[in-house]
Structures are given as C-alpha cells and as structure tokens.
C-alpha cells in the first residue's frame, strides 16, 4: 500500500500533471480544422496527436516504474521559501504596470531581500541596496537601451 505522502511527491504528481495536460492538449488537437481538406499526415493535427500518444506511453512507463520503486527520493531543502518567491513574483507582475517600474520593483526587491534574508537587520543598508538594485536596472533598460518602462504619475 502506497503512502499518501509518496503519491503526492513530485515523482508522481508531475507525471500526473503532465497526463492531465496531455489530455487537454489531445482534446484540443482533435478540434483543429484546416480550411482546406488535407490528408491526416500532412495536416496540422498529425504531429500533436503523435506527440500526445508518445507522451501517454512514456508517462505510463514512468509512473509504473515509480510504483515499482520501493522508495521515493527524499527532496531536501525548504518548501516555503520558493513559494514566497513565486508569490512575490506573481504580485510584482500584477502591479508592474499599475504601479510603474520604480515603485513595483522597489517593493519586489524589498520582498526578495526579506525572503533571501539580505541585510534584514540593517534597515539603512537594506533600503540603500534595494534602491541601488532598482536604479541599476532602470539605467540599463530605460537610459542605456531607451526602453519605455511603465510609469506611475509620469515618474519612474
């Protein structure tokens, strides 16, 4: 009997996720309609369908092999820290245009400094480094390469 924890491990969860993804992909492949009638192997559905079939076969192979393996490799490391990075990045992307480059990036760098524990006990250095990081990439993209970055009230 497999433990629930093992079934939820990446060794199982990722192939299962790929299986779901492949099923959605295959279903969408069957809905592709060419304007002119083409034989199957010359049409736009052939390779996606072949790729899906191969995916199913390989994913089943990987899952069966995983079931037969007596134990799952332990995944060392932290779980929460990468989650916080993803959350901070998601929020950054969401507010990037509304808040403009300057403010959103500064807040993002603050968040990353907290997550990566950089100078969190030295508030002045913490703020100065965050300002420097924000400014350096502003200079790179907006000043040197002339890219128009999002602004807040016409300011960076």
């Amino acid at each position: 009997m497999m433990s629930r924890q093992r079934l939820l491990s990446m060794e199982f969860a990722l192939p299962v996720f790929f299986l779901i993804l492949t099923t959605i992909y295959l279903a969408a492949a069957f809905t592709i309609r060419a304007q002119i009638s083409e034989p199957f192997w010359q049409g736009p559905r052939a390779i996606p369908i072949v790729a899906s079939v191969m995916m199913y076969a390989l994913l089943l192979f990987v899952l069966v092999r995983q079931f037969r393996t007596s134990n799952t490799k332990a995944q060392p490391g932290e779980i929460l820290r990468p989650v916080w990075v993803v959350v901070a990045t998601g929020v950054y992307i969401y507010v990037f245009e509304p808040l403009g480059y300057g403010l959103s990036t500064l807040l993002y760098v603050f968040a990353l400094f907290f997550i990566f524990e950089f100078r969190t006990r030295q508030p002045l250095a913490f703020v100065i480094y965050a300002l420097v990081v924000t400014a350096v990439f502003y200079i790179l993209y907006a000043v040197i390469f002339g890219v128009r970055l999002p602004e807040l009230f016409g300011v960076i």
Partner: protein
Amino acid sequence: MDTFLSYFNGFSALLDPLNFAVMIGGFLVGTFFGAMPGLTSVLAIALLLPVTYQIDVVPALIMCASIFMAGMYSGSITAITINIPGAPSSMMTALDGNKLMKRGKGANALGHAALGSMIGGTLGAVLLMAFMPIAAKLSLLIQTPGKFSLIFFALVVIVIVEKGNIAKSTIAMLLGLMIATVGIDELLSVPRFTFGTENLMEGIDLMPLVIGAFAISEILIQAQNWRLDSEVDLDEIKKIRIKRRDFIPLWSEVREIGLWTYFKSTVIGYLIGVLPGAGGSMAAFVSYIEARRSSRKPQEYGNGSREGIAAAESANNAMCGGAFVPMLMFGIPGDPTTAIVLGVLVINGLQPGARLLENQADLISPMFASLIVSALILIPLTLYLLGPLFLKMVTISRGLLYSGIAVVALVGSYVATLSIFQMSLSLVLGVLAFYMRRASYSPVAMLLGFILGPDLEQYFRRAMSLSDGDPMIFLTSPDSIFFLLLTAAFVYMIVVRKPKTATAP
C-alpha cells in the same frame, strides 16, 4: 576565398567601439556567471537575451560568443580554488585542480586551466571556421526528407545522452515540442491550441521559455536550497594568497603534458560539441578519461594532475566551436547556449543554412572572431589582470545576487515584447521548470524540443506532401537513410552497448 576574406573582416569589426565594448562586457559577465557556483553562462545569455532585442545582431552575437567562451573557462576558477565547480563542465577540473590548490599550487593550476582553455577554445574556433564552408556545402545536399531525419537524429541524441533518464528526457523534449505547436500553424495558417485567447495566437515566444527555464527556475532552486548551500567560508578565502607571476605555467610542465594531449582533447571536445545535447560536461569527461587512459602517469589523475586539468579544460572550451557548426548550418543547436544564440539569429530574421555563410557572412564572422579573441587573448589576460580578484567574486551575498537576477529576468522578459502576458508566462514556465528539475526532467531537452519541434513537423509534413502521403520516402531518400542509420548507430553505441571503460574516478 570570399569566406576567408569575410572572416578577416570579422576581426576588423571587433575594432568598432560598440562591438569591442560588448565583447569585453560579455566576457566579464560570462566570467562572473561561470565562476559563481549556481550561475552558468547559459543563465547569463538567457538574462541578456532581452538586451539583444535592443541592439544590432552583430554586437548581440559577439556578446553571446564571448559569454559562451568565458563561462566555459571560468567554471574552473572556483573548481580549483574552493572545490566547487562554477559550471558543470568544470567537474573534472575540480578533481585535480583543488588537490594542487591544497598543495599551495592553486595559481599554477589556474594557469594550466587557462592555458588549456586558451588552446582548446582557439583551436575549436579555428576548426569551426575551417569546416563551416564544408558543412555549408554538405547542408545543400540534404533534401526535405533528409532534413526531417537529421532533426529526428538530433532529438534522439539529445534524449539518449541523458543516460538513465531517457524516458523523462523524452517527455521533457515532447513537452517542448507541444509548447511550440501553440499558435498559428505555419503551413496552413490554422490556429492551434489557442483556447480562444488572442495572446496565444502568435504562439509562445522563446524568451519566456528561456527566462523561465534557466533564470526563474534557478532562483527557485536556490531558494529551496538556501539552508543546504551555506555561504562560502569567507575566512578560508581570505587566507588564500595568489601572486600573478604564479599564473604562468612552466614550460617544463607544458612539455610534460604534451602538445598531443592539448590537440587530442581539443578534437574530442570539438566533435562532442557538434553532437546535439552533449555539451561541455561530456566533452571534459570523455577527454579526461581518454587522457588518463593514454597517460604515462595515470596514477596522478585525481591527485593533482596538470595533464588532467589541461585535457578537461581544452575539451570543454573546444566544444564552444563545435556547438556552432550544427546550429549555423542546420539550425540544430548543440547545447542550450547555442539554442539561445539560434534564437538571437531568428529574432533578427537570419535563417541558419548554407546561405547564411554565402550571403550574410559579414554578420556571423565577427562572432567567430569574438570566439577566437576571447579564447586567445581575453582568457589569459583576465586571469593575469583580474586573477587575484576572482576569489572575491564568490563572497558576494547570494541574497543580493539572486534578487538582482530576479529583477533583470522579469523586467527583461517585459522589455522584449512590452507584454505583461510574456512576463507571466516566464513565471509559469519557470515554476514548471523548477518542478521538472526537482523530478529530474531536463529543461534543456524541453528547450531543444521547443526549438527543433517546429522544423521537425514542417519537414515531416512537407516530405509527406512530396510523396503523396507515402512514408517510404524516408527510407528511399539516401540522405534520410543516412541519418536514420546514424540514429540507429548512436542508439546502439550509447544505449544498447555496455561500456567497457571505467566510470569517473
């Protein structure tokens, strides 16, 4: 003759202030990323990919070439000094280099690594330039069915070099192919897998895939391993004293290694570079094993052998030249770096193939020149001038470093297309690549599947159209048969046949 003249003009193009500046800048960036454990030259090029949208193709390619060469060499710096290879291709260098370091011969080991890289990198680039016209002629002989079989061969090699993980590597490659099918079908202009979203009509760009797979996923991996990878011991590094004059290898040592070792390792590295998916690590490993097999002092290998350092470093830098051959002539990248360089070419409207050398040699020759100058001049020069500072690089706080990389990656994915959607896609693909890496699915195979997938499909469908749907065309066309037999031979040699030689020491 025209080709060689354009090669010469490539060197003069480097005298342009902008080109010269991007070559030096690229080299320093590549050195930094290559030397920092956890960062690689692939990540450096991935982060600079958005910048290539803002500059001309010539400086963009010059920069990519110098980053590639520098990154391949500089992995040896931390491999030798603190026994942590800055890049996977320097694993073999760490075996002997760090032993020499512990005996107080660190500068000497760094000098030998630089000399090996210099010789391998230069000869590899020369071989690239010499064989490009021949490869261009050969590429003209390949017809549509042969092109399909060639790409099929490349994809098979990419997955089988991941020995022990072939199924997972194939899944990753197929995933890349599936991602590449999103958007308008090139042959019939039919939308595919857009799910009613306008954002997906133009397909998924290379940029979010590269940024996600190599930058975002790396930051997440580092966040995950934050407590496992303790900061480098600063006190230990402060104790290390390196003098510039010690960097220069003694002639007697070079003679003992032998020019044949350098040459043989260069050729091995170059040929492995030509193989899709093999990369610098395999080049260094194979040439190290071969050098040990034929050495007069095999017992020294793993105990501070200068010959071992020379063999590994010559090979991994020679790989740089080899990796460009299939990319430039057939559009088949040999490794992730050349895959991104291929992206730079395509973004700028250049198509790989014989015509690239015929009609646009002036655009790619400066890149060859950059490879040679980086290997021949910049590697020894930066070691001599900046060598004592190299160790200081690893003392930079990782918190600051990864925060900066996160910003440059995300803003970079925005500036290329000015699209929040592309930025979001970078994050989604980054999270996917993170989980893939955790479960041993190769993001490199996914990237190469994404790049080669569309060509594979196009040539397959075109060949089937030419034969009125008869698949026998792949077995009756001589060029196609050649590549299918080559595929079978590689599968036999790498997967079926049991290796006779010993594994890594």
